[in-house]
């Protein structure tokens, strides 16, 4: 039975934006504290692999999620350790870690496929949609809100929490202060390093969850480089959203919609070359970054600048 075009596109847009949302919230948190997380892509890939691997090993999806989170925390710690403790260029560390995790996951995945035959590499079940039945049949609302799984609801809740936390709590205010002016924050008695470490570590866990969403809710297996640039799109979404939670949230939805549109353009066969259809999200990302140039609202003032206590 054909489903209406609008339902397909919107439901798909939400599914495709969920990984962006996880990675973008992680990136946003780290950037708020003043540290760039350029390793989002690699951390997503690692989360996708380890979430899948631990589920395959234990047969338990929750343990898989836990595995992805632990990987994310460790990778976040590594990034924090190198970029905060040693003040190494955040760009270089981030790029290095992307390469590291790309190699690591490909290596592990080949080891795994060497040790089992093809049919034993699939997960038996995935995290399914919570709401089913008549509610999921309602036009638009059904496909956008009801035909989603727990992880999508989780990330929406996390965005709301983040917005509340950074605007309404003392700790949130301190976090923003650390990203704006670490020296002044230090004078005011805020432990700059603790805030930055924690932000970057949690950032890793969020990015890893974004990757795990792909293997544990969508496709039941791992493929080398399966994140296909989603971490970079997430970074673009943060800039386009001008570092605000609502802005970032809707930017991610926009990129998700663009990804869904790139599919539908092809299926409807409206004469646009497929290369262009596939480029849509990336073109949008570039346009987004160009469009915010020169606008007043920039990111945190101390973003990307390593802070050394005794300088």
């Amino acid at each position: 039975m054909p489903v209406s075009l609008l339902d397909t596109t919107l439901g798909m847009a939400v599914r495709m934006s969920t990984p962006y949302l996880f990675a973008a919230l992680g990136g946003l948190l780290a950037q708020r504290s003043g540290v760039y997380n350029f390793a989002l892509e690699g951390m997503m890939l690692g989360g996708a692999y380890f979430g899948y691997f631990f589920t395959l090993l234990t047969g338990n999806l929750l343990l898989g999620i836990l595995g992805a989170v632990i990987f994310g925390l460790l990778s976040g710690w590594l990034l924090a350790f190198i970029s905060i403790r040693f003040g190494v260029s955040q760009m270089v560390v981030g790029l290095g870690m992307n390469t590291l995790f790309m190699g690591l996951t490909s290596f592990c995945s080949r080891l795994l496929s060497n040790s089992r035959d093809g049919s034993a590499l699939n997960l038996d079940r995935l995290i399914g949609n919570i709401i089913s039945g008549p509610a999921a049949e309602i036009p638009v609302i059904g496909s956008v809100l009801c035909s989603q799984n727990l992880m999508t609801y989780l990330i929406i809740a996390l965005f709301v929490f983040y917005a509340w936390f950074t605007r309404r709590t003392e700790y949130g205010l301190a976090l923003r202060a650390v990203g704006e002016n670490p020296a002044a924050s230090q004078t005011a008695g805020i432990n700059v390093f603790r805030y930055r470490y924690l932000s970057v570590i949690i950032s890793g866990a969020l990015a890893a969850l974004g990757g795990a969403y792909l293997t544990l809710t969508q496709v039941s297996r791992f493929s080398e480089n399966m994140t296909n640039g989603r971490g970079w799109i997430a970074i673009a979404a943060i800039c386009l959203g001008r570092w605000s939670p609502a802005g970032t949230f809707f930017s991610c939805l926009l990129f998700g919609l663009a990804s869904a549109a790139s599919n539908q353009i092809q299926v409807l066969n409206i004469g646009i070359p497929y290369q262009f259809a596939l480029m849509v999200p990336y073109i949008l990302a570039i346009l987004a970054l160009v469009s915010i140039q020169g606008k007043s609202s920039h990111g945190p003032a101390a973003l990307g600048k390593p802070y050394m206590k005794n300088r």
Partner: protein
Amino acid sequence: MKKKSFFAVTMSITLLLTLLAGCSDPGAGSGGGPSGGDSAGQTGGEASRLKVAWICDGVLTDGGWNTNGYEGMQKLAEEYDLEVSYQENVPQTDVGDVLRNYASEGYDMVLSNEQYHCEPMVEVAADFPNVTFGCVNAYVSAENMIAFSGTLWQHNYLAGVMSGMVTKSNKLGLITFSTDSDSALTYLSSFRAGAQSVNPDIEVVHVATGSFSDLAAGKEMATSLIDQGCDVVYCNSGDCNATVMELCIERGVYTISAIVDRNGMSDEYVLGSTVNLPSTQLRMMVEGKLSGTHTGNVTPIVGGIEDGIEAFLVNESLQDKLDASVFEAIDEATAEIIAGNVTVELP
């Protein structure tokens, strides 16, 4: 200073791990080269025993292409009492050296399971005129090299015939990596021609993933096709194939497996598999060499379903679920192709 050395160590580990991905642990049945090779036969056989080397890109346990070639070689080794050395995971950069090693170690035949090995093989073959080389699905060849390749359309045509017989919406979906490469267009035109030969009203919607590994995107692509009314979806885009097939089975629409026989995935929704079997080509190479009738061809020999180089394997468990006319149409089309009465416009 401390900072710098820590950084250097981290970067070195990164590089090392990246390199490791390219040369992961070889599994059972592989050798480290001709010297450390794993010979599948007793040592010290009589002088007339043919020494054959077989290499592949990737692992022996992929459950598809390489496994088929490997098992084919094992069967040949037993049947003709060959001494065979196997080597897996031979990357593109090492092919020349690996082939050269085997040739200079006294192997009579050096075979590869990987089509992209054919170019370095032609170069090496020129230096070893007494050795017979062979490459599966090759697109270039040499005087002392045996090369076969498939038609790339005959099995797809048959898949199209079957899809055309079972579709109710008259809308079929085809997913490939791109939609304008020669191979993608060959897939499209043969699949469509087959379907339209039994039902002229059929429309084939052809879409591209742009990635062999973005499984989630491939799955969404198939979702779009199914939502728009396609009731057969055929995907040939690397790792996405199995994911797309799973979705089709879940959504209750027909699907076809490309490259690998995955008929076992469902006894209801998998129509069949379009395969191109390396074992058939390897057998023709070894038998040609043994009988002395075929030791090389300068241009690759193209073969199709008649030679067994390609096949459309119908899912046997559908025999009693579908109308007999479906299978009659496939048999008829097979006979027509073999008789040379079918032509497909290729790019």
